[in-house]
């Protein structure tokens, strides 16, 4: 059986945006900035980094928050600033843009794999692959033993972006990165 990998249009557009951008060095630098709550995902992987623009004087680092009240956003802004300054880039502004709203569709394939390896079930490990953008109450793939015999314990986990599940085969609880 041949598996043809497919990606969401959101992710496709995002990759195109980066590939066409002139500011490749800035994009690469920001690959070193990770989400403080989920330190295996870069701001690019998770989809917080929306675009890099240049207004003639400053680089505009456009970010979009995941959840409205996510406290990691402030820390991420500081980390972006530090990474740029450490690399002698001082002409920058970090801007928050709400539209288009963040969705888990913008998570990169590398990010999805890293998340699963870290022990957090990624949003695509829903039976429908997150096509309906609904967090189900069961059948999430267990990141420990790959069983689908799993069930929700709580709609919220350790952070707003996660729900708590339990695997009935290996008996391990695990976080699921909610599909929105």
């Amino acid at each position, binding site marked *: 059986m041949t598996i043809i990998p497919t990606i969401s249009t959101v992710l496709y557009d995002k990759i195109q945006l980066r590939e066409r951008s002139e500011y490749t060095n800035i994009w690469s630098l920001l690959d070193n900035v990770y989400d403080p709550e989920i330190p295996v995902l870069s701001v690019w992987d998770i989809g917080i980094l929306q675009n890099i623009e240049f207004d003639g004087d400053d680089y505009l680092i456009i970010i979009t*928050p995941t*959840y*409205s*009240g*996510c*406290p990691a956003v402030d820390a991420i802004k500081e980390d972006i600033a530090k990474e740029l300054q450490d690399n002698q880039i001082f002409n920058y502004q970090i801007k928050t843009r*709400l*539209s288009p*709203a*963040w969705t888990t569709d913008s998570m990169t394939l590398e990010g999805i794999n890293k998340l699963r390896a870290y022990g957090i079930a990624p949003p695509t490990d829903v039976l429908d692959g997150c096509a309906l*953008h609904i*967090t189900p109450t069961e059948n999430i793939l267990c990141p420990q033993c790959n069983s689908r015999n799993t069930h929700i*314990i*709580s*709609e*919220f*986990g*350790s*952070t*707003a972006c996660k729900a*708590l599940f339990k695997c009935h085969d290996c008996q391990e609880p695990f976080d699921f990165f*909610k599909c*929105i």
Partner: protein
Amino acid sequence: MLDLKEKTKQYSTRLGDDSLILGHRISEWTSNGPFLEEDIALGNVALDYIGRARMFYTYAADLAGNGKTEDDLAYLRSEREFQNYLINELPRGDFAFTMVRQLFVDVFFSYYLKALTNSNDTELAAIATKSLKETRYHLRRSRDWTLRLGLGTDESKARMTKALAEIWGYVHELFEPDELELELIACGIAVDTREIKDNWFADIGAILSEADLAIPDAEWAVRGGRKGYHTEHLSMLLSVMQSVHRAHPGANW
């Protein structure tokens, strides 16, 4: 005659008030939740609301353009300047009361925010698009809890019935736009809550019926939130919420 920008600023501020005051009320459950998962869930819902308040306040502050920030709006206004709907300021009560309020507010916001995504004001529409996803997730929880408590024990059912009776009279003002909102509705900016009233009553009726709970037969109604007339509870909430900022103006960490 206020100009459109000023009116939109006031509108965004009151939407921020709704979210901030409710978010603060829910946050009072932190470390008081009935069990650990629920404690965490309530904390996360509170964060969503406080985050939503920040977006509305930040936009209002941008429109004001006078150097004031979201913090000025949240921490340096007094009771009469807040224009949140009264339902949001009521004390958290027991878990049943909190869940009935969440159900009412979640159903309300699920229609309200959907309508606001079509606002002629693109920033308000963007905030609504972002918040709507969160509200739909909240609604799933509050609906689930309503069923569990309504169909649970005699005790849980009795508490839900009591909570419904206590909250019902605060529902009516949600569907009565004031002068400011009527003007902004005419401009395609604000949501006309009269148009979501029937859906709200139908959804709440269906959920309560499924939970074997009755819609209260209550004729009283309390109004005034959008005019700045509040219950006695808001001033106490503000005195707690604003105390640090007022004691240490401009403090940063």
